[in-house]
């Protein structure tokens, strides 16, 4: 039987997952293997060097570079305060001395005998990494971070913005093809993760921001609305560092597109549960998709995806991910081996797909996405 590899987003009711929680620089791991953690437990922390300031002491004091070291009134690594006199010229017969004051609170790092530059460092900045989702610590990476074992629902989106957040799942629409409106959101949604339907207008997104909603999940969104939120056109899909106060996860794509049935139903099933959302996306080699994780202990069928699950074959459920049938769901009827010429005259490996209405059409395999659940 013919088969083909295809990408697919995970929409799983109950799956084990491992989250690597790593510091950007070496630091301290604060938990031990076997510890139970909640989403906001800090598992590792470190300090990154503070911002630096450089001052050309030679120029400021009007002395030769070689004389700078002798003019310094503070020692390397000594703590200093803003406005503190840190260097002084010898002056003329002890008079007409020029003084130099520290521009920052921090410490004196060093001074160059070639350039006359002195380097001052602001206090280190603390960086903390939390567990993101409830679970147990599986592994410690000494000085770097941990791996958290978790179990529950995992729902990936296609693109997100706004980094990590947590909150209770709440549905704000009745169906997956409903366009959410402003009046559907109110104070009761503050601090929660709201599930919308097929489309999120820009004004509803900004209203959600104003209400202090932590996360919002929707089928489709406009590219120009995304540009308005970010303040620039997203040229490459690498996101996560935006400071918006809310995380957004788009499940299907740009435009008005009904949320996939499996995705919407899963959110409905877990309404009221506490979840973690991460809008970070990286569509490059080593792709990272946005995700919602809903830890639970319910005794429902557990799925662990294998590489073979990415192979489509006859009867596989698939979704079309490019025009002219974008968003349509169907099943694979056959995977013909020869290349087939498309309307564009592109020669492509294709699949014959039977849509829910019964129509059978030919689609390039590259334009299909496996429905994984």
């Amino acid at each position, binding site marked *: 039987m013919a088969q083909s*590899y295809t*990408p697919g987003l995970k929409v799983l009711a109950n799956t084990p997952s491992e989250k690597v929680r790593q510091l950007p*620089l*070496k630091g301290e791991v604060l938990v031990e293997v076997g510890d139970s953690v909640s989403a906001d437990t800090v598992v590792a922390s470190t300090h*990154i*060097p503070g*911002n*630096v*300031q*450089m001052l050309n002491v030679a120029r400021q004091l009007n002395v030769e*570079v070689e004389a700078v070291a002798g003019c310094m009134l503070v020692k390397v690594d000594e703590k200093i305060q803003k406005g503190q006199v840190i260097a002084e010229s010898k002056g003329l017969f002890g008079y007409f001395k020029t003084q130099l004051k520290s521009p920052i609170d921090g410490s004196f*790092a060093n001074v*160059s005998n*070639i*350039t006359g*530059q002195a*380097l001052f*460092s602001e206090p280190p900045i603390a960086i903390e990494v939390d567990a993101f989702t409830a679970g147990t610590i599986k592994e410690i990476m000494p000085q*770097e971070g941990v791996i958290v074992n978790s179990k529950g629902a995992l729902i990936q989106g*296609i*693109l997100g913005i706004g980094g990590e957040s947590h909150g209770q799942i709440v549905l704000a629409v009745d169906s997956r093809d409903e366009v959410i409106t402003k009046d559907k959101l109110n104070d009761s949604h503050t601090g929660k993760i709201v599930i919308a339907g097929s489309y999120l207008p820009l004004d509803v997104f900004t209203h959600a921001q104003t209400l202090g909603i932590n996360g919002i999940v929707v089928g489709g969104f*406009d*590219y*120009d609305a*995304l540009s308005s939120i970010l303040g*620039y*056109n*997203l*040229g*490459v*899909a690498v996101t996560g560092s935006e400071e918006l106060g809310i995380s957004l996860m788009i499940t299907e*794509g*740009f*435009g008005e597109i009904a949320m996939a049935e499996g995705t919407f139903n899963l959110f409905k099933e877990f309404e009221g549960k506490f979840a973690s959302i991460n809008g970070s996306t990286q*569509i*490059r*080699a*080593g792709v990272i998709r946005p995700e919602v994780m809903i830890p639970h202990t319910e005794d429902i069928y557990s799925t662990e995806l294998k*590489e073979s699950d990415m192979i489509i074959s006859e009867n596989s459920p698939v979704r079309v*991910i*490019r*025009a*002219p049938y*974008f968003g349509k769901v169907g099943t694979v009827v056959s995977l013909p081996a020869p290349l087939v010429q*498309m*309307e*564009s*005259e*592109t*020669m*492509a490996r294709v699949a014959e797909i039977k849509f829910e209405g019964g129509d059978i059409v030919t*689609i*390039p395999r*590259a*334009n299909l*996405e496996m429905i994984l659940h």
Partner: protein
Amino acid sequence: MSNKINGDNINVIMATDCGSTTTKSILIQKIDDEYRLTHRGEAPTTVEAPFEDVTRGVLNAIMELEELSGRTILKGEDIQSPASGDDGVDIYISTSSAGGGLQMMVGGVVKSMTGESAQRAALGAGAIVMDVLASNDGRLYHEKVKRIRQLRPDMILLSGGIDGGTVSHVVELAEVLEAANPKPRLGINYKLPVIYAGNNNAQDAIKERLGEITDLTVVDNIRPTLEEENLQPSRDKIHDLFMEHVMAQAPGYKKLMGWTDAPIMPTPGAVGEIIQKIAKQDNISVVGVDIGGATTDVFSVFENQFNRTVSANLGMSYSICNVLAEASIPNVARWVPYEMDEKGLTNRIANKMIRPTTIPQSLEALKIEQAIAREALRLSFEQHKEFAVNLKGVQQERTISDTFEQSSSGETLVNMMDLDLLVGSGGVLSHAPRREQATRMLIDSFLPEGITRLAVDSIFMMPQLGVLSTVHEKAAVEVFEKDCLIELGSCVAPVGKFKDGQVMLTYEINLPNEKVMGEILAGQIKLITLEYVGCSAVFIPGNGLDLGNGKNESIQTEIHGGVVGILLDGRGRQPFAIPTDMHTRVEKLSEWSLATNEYPQEAK
């Protein structure tokens, strides 16, 4: 592993290119004393989980070669070498851009001088230059420190000052690096490789500052005097460190390095090698372009000087929205022969960005992709022209006393009238359903002037041939010319101001079986079908126009056809303009499409 190979005994060559998503393999065999491409295979690259070993993808791509060729190359997981009968290969070589390629920062004292030289060295070695630090780049110290910490490059090339000159400026840059204490992008357990290629008098001071905290290597100055640029020692060291550090961090590469008979090269570095070889062999000026999903590389050789630029975010899938942002919607829309809803267009293009591996099924989708490709190519070439400048041009300015204040660079080396050959590569060009489409995309975006030959890379194998050229030049050049390069034909385009309705060009071409002659009016294109043979021809430019011999001067020459033919382009150069009125624009685009057999005519 040895890069000294006895060329006489080489009959079977295998090469792979480990791309970010696909590993491509080719098999070259000596047939009747000539090297020819015989088979090609591919498999997904396996640097990500669950495999995390690049050699898995390489083995899969080799196995596809075995299936297609009937040749037994592998014995278990070992490559059989040398070849014997239907078994094994004589050489195995590879390139790689997996893991995002080689990402570098470079530094120089004066941005337009040593900074630019350092950039040229890094780009020529196949790197992506993330930022250029310079004493005069306008940023404050702490801003530079912050930037270095943010970017986390794979490697830094630091240059600055001429030999024997003042040391303080370059030492100041080293102090910025020292303060930043940069960490490499891949792996937090090793020191960042830094190459110092600046003023030799400052070497000790640089070692003092960076010797402990980085993995510092000192090479010859990139700019020993104002008049001289010495890029090769830095480029060689970049390649060495790429192998030792960056590649060694990528999963499975240590094993792969043990398999190859020559050092693994960064993919763009290898493409640059082949472009240079072709220019040198035929003594011609060449522009090459490789348009990928994330980046577009442009290579040129003019006046025997090689330049490469990489437009890191001008590509056809991962960065397609950036093309739209940089080009603007009207510039993309000007190539589309119908009216478009702006919101619908941007959503459609953005959907390609988030699902980058999809392909255009409808003709409408193909036209939009090719419209964007024209703009990605145009913008990349604009960037290349700005960067590929003549060092001699700046020499006079830079020898006057206060060099630090000099900011202007030389004249661009890129002279389209002097261009002999324009070569396109990358999916949107190599895999365009009709070669006429690749021809039109190349002409519309690069706007060649006078008489220019056009070609495309048949299946994107320039990287493998590039690395092959370093160990077996004859094989690389033969395969490049016979199997890689598809001659599209020639473009004839007069340059200069013209009036509507004016005769742009009068032509007389002696085709193998007939003589064709006629006139091309302003705004017209005519395609004359001619395979890849040379024909004598006479071209007379219209009043006030130039075809390369000067204004109003005719040209008698031999012109080559190709799989498309000779395209006589009367749309003008300097200026070249597309009508802005919607109705006229659509009419003209349709007329040009029809004249060049670009698209099937029955559908939109």
